[in-house]
């Protein structure tokens, strides 16, 4: 793409100064920034002295891909980071310098970095008993895992906004003017956060919030780590600063005067990660510290009809509306369907997508399907329909948790049988299911028949012990033979010293399940699932055993999986992303990937979810922000204003990331069968009515 004049200034000038670049989405800020990186390298700057800093890892992908594709001769690697990854690397490297000063009980021990999974585990293990004993949160009706996420989220906000974590409840309560119950909830959240933090300090455990705190409040104040970063990275490219937090902004305040060049990129009218501590107002103040200011105003993504749609929607959402281009028509940019029932809307979307792909030759990667939330049922229904139409598709997350994948269930069930000392029973159904997955061509009917006979006293007995020959024949001797191989392997394992769970899984996978004529042989997806489960179990053992060397982590892991605490995430890091496929994602996930497409399908347009901030009963992103005035109260009017702003930013943000057309899918009755009349739908209706009136008037 040819760069416009202002983009060229960003790309080719000011290599010895600091630039503040602003503009709404789609004006080519990131494109210009990528070009700047290339020019920097061409001008002789060492590649590894350039740091691309972003609020979340996915936002660095366009940089990495573009630079890899370009044939710029690089001498090193472009480094990309988030505040979280910087904090992790710095703490990992420089921990010995601060170990004595941070109040840890065992300063000479190594720190243990906690994954999200382990945070949930330790919450369940140590904080949950306290919550239950004292009946905390008895009026809150969200799942335990979301409850823990929010307790930790408060600690994260304290670290990222930089306030004392002991003041979480005080801050939240001072702004609250509703029933007293909410005050108790905030107190409970404070107590739980304190308990969790104390536990971390006792055991050298570092969750995200402590990593950030150690980096920002301790390491960054020491000369050596600060010099290390400043000397290594002399050229900064900081994208989406409006989605980043005050901790990052403060680091930049110190860093900017010392770097050789910097480009700070501010996306106006965004702030989608506010509920994670993003602070666009704080970000904008960095402008003062930059020597050159550039604003991009020309859209490089939207067609003129889409621009007209943006203007008309802005009017309907009571936002300042840019002028529509000449000869443009908002209605040409949208396709609107009024369905009565939810499944009809899904059919409508799938048919239109299929027609775009198969009849009009649109690349599936240029299509996204978005909804405010993406429950499993909707995702599954969409994927099924798209598969029926032979449209390649992908979802930002698979529809099942890792522990529910057949391969993972199989491994877990066989682990229970192979470790009778755990006393964790497996049901007959689970065992039959595991046999069908373990042995090729074994169907569930015959597996159940077999299990009914051979599984007694929590043990698998030999096939030859089946006295009824007819039954043996029905199961077949071939399957019986392979069952015997598996059974004997398990038997031999039981006689030996037990292995840690991950090692057991690996051995079972390698020696039996993935061998020819067994169920995982040639089944690449099953192997990937097994690998993910093994990673999860290994990380669990390695960290937990360092903290509690005497705990038998294997049954603990299995029990926690059964309880739904761990193995929920499915990280498909090794798998090839199906790049040329339709993306199905929650609207915010798409927005934050910051990659425009030609066609968008918005589903459930009538849902009130488009205009609601994320439900967080234990926390409050606005009150725990640096912009909150002490002593102020959060009023109903604030909530209304925020919801309006949320909807406008979301809808307009999506439109600005669309090149050609938006398909608006609506069903009178939502998934639950209720009538749908959300604010977005009202805005669309009012826009259409107004356009019709204006046309009649003309």
């Amino acid at each position, binding site marked *: 793409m040819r760069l416009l004049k202002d983009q060229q200034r960003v790309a080719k000038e000011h290599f010895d100064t600091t630039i503040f670049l602003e503009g709404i989405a789609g004006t080519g800020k990131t494109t210009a920034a990528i070009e700047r990186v290339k020019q920097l390298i061409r001008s*002789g700057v*060492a*590649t*590894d002295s350039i740091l691309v800093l972003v609020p979340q*890892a996915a936002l660095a992908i366009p940089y990495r*891909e573009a630079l*890899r*594709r370009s*044939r710029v001769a*690089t*001498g*090193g*690697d472009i480094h990309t980071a*988030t505040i*979280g*990854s910087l904090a*992790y*690397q710095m703490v990992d*490297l*420089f*921990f*010995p*310098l601060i*170990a004595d000063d941070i109040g840890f009980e065992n300063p*000479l021990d*190594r720190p243990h*970095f906690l994954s*999200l*999974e382990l945070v949930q585990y330790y919450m369940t293990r140590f904080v949950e008993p306290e919550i239950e004993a004292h009946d905390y949160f008895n009026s809150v009706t969200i799942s335990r895992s979301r409850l823990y*996420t929010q307790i930790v989220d408060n600690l*994260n906000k304290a670290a990222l906004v930089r306030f004392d974590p002991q003041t979480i409840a005080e801050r939240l309560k001072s702004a609250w003017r509703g029933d007293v119950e909410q005050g108790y909830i905030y107190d409970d959240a404070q107590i739980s956060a304190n308990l969790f933090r104390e536990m971390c300090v006792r055991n050298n455990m570092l969750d*995200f919030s402590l*990593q950030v705190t150690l980096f920002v409040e301790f390491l960054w104040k020491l000369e*050596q780590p600060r010099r290390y970063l400043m000397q290594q990275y002399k050229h900064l490219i900081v994208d989406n600063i409006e989605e980043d937090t005050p901790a990052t902004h403060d680091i930049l305040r110190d860093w900017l005067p010392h770097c050789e060049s910097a480009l700070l990129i501010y996306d106006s009218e965004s702030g989608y990660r506010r509920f*994670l501590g993003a602070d666009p107002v704080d970000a904008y103040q960095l402008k003062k510290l930059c020597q050159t200011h550039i604003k991009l105003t020309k859209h490089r993504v939207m067609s003129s009809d889409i621009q007209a749609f943006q203007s008309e929607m802005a009017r309907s959402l009571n936002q300042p509306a840019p002028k529509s281009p000449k000869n443009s028509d908002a209605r040409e940019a949208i396709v609107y369907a009024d369905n009565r029932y939810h499944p009809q809307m899904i059919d409508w979307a799938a048919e239109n997508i299929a027609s775009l792909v198969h009849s009009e030759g649109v690349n599936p990667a240029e299509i996204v399907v978005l909804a405010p939330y993406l429950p499993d049922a909707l995702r599954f229904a969409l994927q099924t329909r798209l598969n029926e139409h032979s449209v390649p598709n992908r979802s930002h997350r698979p529809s099942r948790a890792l522990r529910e994948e057949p391969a993972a269930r199989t491994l877990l069930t066989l682990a229970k049988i192979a470790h009778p000392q755990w006393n964790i029973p497996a049901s007959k159904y689970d065992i039959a299911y595991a046999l069908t997955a373990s042995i090729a061509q074994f169907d569930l009917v015959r597996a159940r028949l077999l299990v009914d006979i051979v599984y007694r006293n929590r043990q698998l007995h030999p096939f030859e012990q089946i006295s009824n020959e007819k039954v043996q024949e029905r199961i077949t001797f071939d399957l019986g033979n392979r069952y015997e191989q598996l059974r004997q392997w398990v038997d031999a394992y039981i006689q030996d010293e037990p*292995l*840690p769970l991950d*090692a057991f899984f*690996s*051995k079972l*996978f*390698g*020696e*039996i399940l*993935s*061998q020819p004529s067994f169920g995982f*042989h040639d089944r*690449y997806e099953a*192997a*990937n699932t097994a*690998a993910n489960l*093994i990673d999860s179990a290994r990380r669990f053992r390695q960290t937990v055993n360092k903290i509690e060397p005497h705990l038998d982590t294997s049954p603990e892991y299995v029990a926690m999986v059964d309880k739904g605490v761990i193995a929920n*995430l499915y*990280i498909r*890091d*090794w*798998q*090839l992303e199906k790049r040329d496929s339709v993306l199905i994602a*929650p609207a915010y*996930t798409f927005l934050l990937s910051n990659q425009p497409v030609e066609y968008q399908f918005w589903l459930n347009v009538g849902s009130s979810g488009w205009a609601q901030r994320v439900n967080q009963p234990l926390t409050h992103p606005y009150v725990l922000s640096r912009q909150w005035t002490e002593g102020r109260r959060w009023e109903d009017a604030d909530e209304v204003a925020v919801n309006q702003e949320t909807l406008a930013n979301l809808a307009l943000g999506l439109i600005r990331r669309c090149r050609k057309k938006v398909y608006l899918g609506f069903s009178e009755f939502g998934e639950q069968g209720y009538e749908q009349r959300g604010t977005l739908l009202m805005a669309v209706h009012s826009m259409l009515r107004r356009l019709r009136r204006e046309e009649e008037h003309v």
Partner: protein
Amino acid sequence: MNLPEDFVFSPSSLQDYVDCPRRFQLKYLQRQRWPAAEVDEMLEFEKRMEQGQRFHQLVHQHLLGIPADTLTKHISDESVRQWFETYLKNGLTDMPKTRFPERTLTIPLGKYALLAKFDVVAIGDKAIIIDWKTSRKIPRREWLAKKLQTIVYRYVLAKGGSHLNKGQTIEPEQIEMRYWYAEHDGATLSFTYDKEQFATHEANLLHLVDEIDSRPDFPLTEDMPRCRFCTYRSLCDRGTQAGSLVDWDTMDTDDVDLADFEIDIDQIAEIEF
């Protein structure tokens, strides 16, 4: 063409190809995981990886200026402590003073890129690449000379190391690749370099990349014993049991690739929507 346009080669991916084309295909082209055991004593193997990783980290920290006694206080593993003491004794012998720990260089290689991650590069009149080894055995020199790591590291530094040398090209004759063995009181095996080797290596590497990119299939290795230590053995129908760690120790082998063992930072930092 077999390779995606943004493919980046590394010494270990090239070594995998040379050892077994099928392994290269599974691991880097199909990116297929196959989580069987590499050796029979998995825990001992894992412990060695952790020790190796910890030692590398200590040296990195030391080269960044953290005092040795501060670091020593934090070492709990006896082997690692001894290795670190050996390093303090002779690990930096005659190393030029400008040292770059844990540096990655990427250079173009034909249509693709080639990456080398150095433990340390020290630059002065000479340019010394050091690779810290914690393996039990020192391999034969001839074996090590043929390793892609020995070839690629020197080639990449000669080709793309100028920015570590104030913009001046590093001449092949300046370069030395030095393997340093912690378990053997800091014994070293060194490989010098010259223009002739550089030209030969360049031609060979380009030829290798061409071959990988254009070959119609990726056959299984004929060197069957290799399969004992390869996790894909069941997929290739090359046996059931992992090879023994005792055998591993007697062979010419390398340290385990620590890159396979790195923690996924995003796992720690990301917050779910």
